[in-house]
């Protein structure tokens, strides 16, 4: 009770209340505009939050993170375009409902499911916090290194079909983070004797380039679309009643969201996939999924909104961000010299509970705002793409330039913007670069500290938590290798069935070689046969 009171005391400030309002309304607006996700908004706002208190800055950013998914469901339901990437599954069942004349039902169901997911996860984590406070101190340098390694491996493995390039990009991120002056031995690394590289490449410059600038380029080079939205009539309360009829689907989906959110590198997509599959398998009407099923909509919206609160667990308890948005939030902690990790759970539990309470209040604020303001919000969806690109470009400038007033930072951000643009055009992921940067830095520090007392390799995993993490890493790698092998096998079978020649470079060379050897072979054979005929006098 004392803990709750002291947490409420932290929140009872006018600037925190303002941050809650700005975060919730701003997040909904940003989510409702297709093309501007929470990552872009957080990247732009990050430097501005450095001058605020940690709780105020984090409340704004968490607000945007948590409420953007509510806003993202509006275009997903009404125009079949997800507002944020994680609302993609909402279009499956939300848009068919709109198409058959039930946009109000779909939206209210999306809001109520999101609300349930958000509240469920926050309540779970507040109850879970004392357990976490006991577990977190078991993590020393070695365990944090292994957890970060597990995080990076999970991020790479999660990009199915693209794990090789995801790994290469994570390696690129690890490399970028090492540029500059090494903090322990004070030796220069890859500075090429350039003064601007001595201080290293700032994470925020990379984040702004890869997320904000590249997205601005994508929008600016795209075509404006004519968008027709549906008129909404009546209230939006009916969703709560409908949600109450599916308590099992809602609770299981929210639990998936909480669990997947806590595992670094996994996040919303896996949570949604698991909950949607569960809902479909256990439904009495599985054939309705993808054609406007209320259970499908509940599963996707509940699970994605349960993730933000849970995603804060590895960040707060271990200092390890599981995805790009929490990686950005980590820099807010660092700027204020608050080091997230086991110490934070032991010494500043009220700060953590205050953050969770802020998320709880935020969910209530967002739902109230949406119940009142959905109709005017729909017009936000109609902002032309390229004009939006102009806005993002203008705002990106504030983010990069205000950091150090450095033109070099802006040039670097523009370069990373182009890299991000090319990666997006090639449908390659950018998130591994950011996580490589953040987790690479953590791994470097923790491995150095962890190896100090290690004499034999086995000493590194002689503690129970380290051993468990090591076994999990091995298991993840084995499962991934097996799935790659199975994929390859099925691909081979499909290739044999269609009798297409392989298009791989190695196969091309092999065919060339064999055809050459065949022609040459035929020539030699013919010459031999004539000489053979001559010598024997046959033929």
């Amino acid at each position, binding site marked *: 009770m004392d803990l709750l009171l002291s947490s409420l005391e932290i929140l009872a400030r006018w600037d925190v209340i303002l941050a809650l309002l700005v975060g919730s309304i701003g997040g909904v607006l940003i989510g409702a505009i297709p093309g501007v996700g929470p990552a872009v908004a957080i990247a732009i706002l990050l430097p501005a939050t450095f001058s605020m208190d940690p709780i105020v800055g984090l409340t704004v950013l968490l607000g945007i993170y948590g409420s953007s998914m509510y806003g993202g469901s509006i275009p997903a339901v009404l125009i079949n375009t997800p507002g944020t990437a994680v609302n993609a599954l909402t279009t499956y069942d939300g848009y068919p409902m709109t198409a058959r004349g039930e946009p109000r039902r779909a939206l209210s169901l999306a809001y109520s499911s999101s609300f349930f997911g958000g509240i469920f996860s926050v309540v779970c984590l507040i109850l879970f916090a004392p357990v976490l406070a006991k577990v977190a101190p078991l993590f020393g340098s070695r365990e944090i290194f292994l957890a970060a390694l597990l995080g990076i491996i999970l991020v790479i493995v999660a990009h199915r079909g693209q794990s090789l390039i995801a790994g290469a990009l994570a390696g690129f*991120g690890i490399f970028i983070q090492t540029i500059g002056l090494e903090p322990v031995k004070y030796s220069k690394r890859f500075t090429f004797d350039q003064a601007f590289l001595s201080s290293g490449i700032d994470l925020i410059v990379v984040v702004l380039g890869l997320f904000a600038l590249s997205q601005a380029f994508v929008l600016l080079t795209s075509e404006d679309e004519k968008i027709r939205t549906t008129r909404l009539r009546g209230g939006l309360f009916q969703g709560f009643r409908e949600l109450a009829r599916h308590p099992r689907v809602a609770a299981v989906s929210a639990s998936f969201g909480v669990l997947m959110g806590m595992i670094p590198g996994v996040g919303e997509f896996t949570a949604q996939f698991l909950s949607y599959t569960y809902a479909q398998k256990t439904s009495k009407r599985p054939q309705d999924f993808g054609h406007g099923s209320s259970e499908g909509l509940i599963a996707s919206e509940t699970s994605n909104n349960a993730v933000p609160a849970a995603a804060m667990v590895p960040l707060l308890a271990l200092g390890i961000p599981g995805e790009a948005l929490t990686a950005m939030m980590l820099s807010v902690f660092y700027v204020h010299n608050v080091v997230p990790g086991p110490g934070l759970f032991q010494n500043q539990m009220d700060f953590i509970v205050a953050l969770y309470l802020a998320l709880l209040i935020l969910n209530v604020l967002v739902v109230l705002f949406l119940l009142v303001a959905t109709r005017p919000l729909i017009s936000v969806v109609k902002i032309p793409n*390229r*004009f939006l690109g102009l806005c993002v470009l*203008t705002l990106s400038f504030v983010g990069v330039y205000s950091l150090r007033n450095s033109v070099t930072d802006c*040039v670097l951000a523009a370069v990373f913007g182009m890299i991000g643009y090319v990666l997006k055009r090639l449908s390659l992921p950018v998130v591994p670069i950011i996580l490589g940067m953040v987790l690479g830095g953590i791994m470097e520090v923790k491995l150095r500290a962890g190896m100090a007392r290690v004499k034999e390799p086995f000493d590194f995993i002689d503690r129970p938590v380290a051993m468990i993490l090591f076994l999990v890493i091995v298991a993840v790698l084995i499962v991934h290798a097996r799935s790659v092998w199975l994929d390859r096998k099925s691909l081979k079978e499909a290739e044999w069935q269609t009798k297409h020649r392989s298009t791989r470079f190695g196969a091309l060379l092999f065919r060339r070689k064999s055809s050459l050897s065949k022609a040459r072979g035929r020539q030699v054979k013919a010459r031999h046969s004539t000489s053979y005929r001559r010598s024997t006098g046959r033929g």
Partner: protein
Amino acid sequence: MVFGLILLAQTPTQTRWVAKTGFFAQPRFWPAVGLMALVGLGGLHLAKLPWRRFTGADWVEVRKWAAALEYAIWFMAYVLVVPVIGYLPASILFAATLSWRLGYRTTRMIAVSILFAIATVIVFKSFLSVKIPGGMIYEYLPGAVRSFFILNL
């Protein structure tokens, strides 16, 4: 890939091996890990890609990349103009001209873009007090107006 290979080749000259320090604590260790992952896994990814000739569709893609480069240049021009003419005038100029370039040439759209630029400056510089220095031309303004401009616009 080529970039990664060049950097990997530069590792001995650009990093140092420190005596009496463990292998994992060497300043060279993590850059090498990153670059080896970049070169190794990137190389495997490239080797697995299907090989084909450069087609017309690829030229379209290259033109798209060039179009994005144009906007990167717009962004850099904006960056270079701000310290000279100041944040507010540069933002207005940038938003209005880029809006014109994008084809939004109606008075309404240009007015909206200018309003957006003004709102951005007021929110970030006046309210959130982000650090963006005043323009050089602000120096020519009379006393009180000058300091107001440098601080807020």
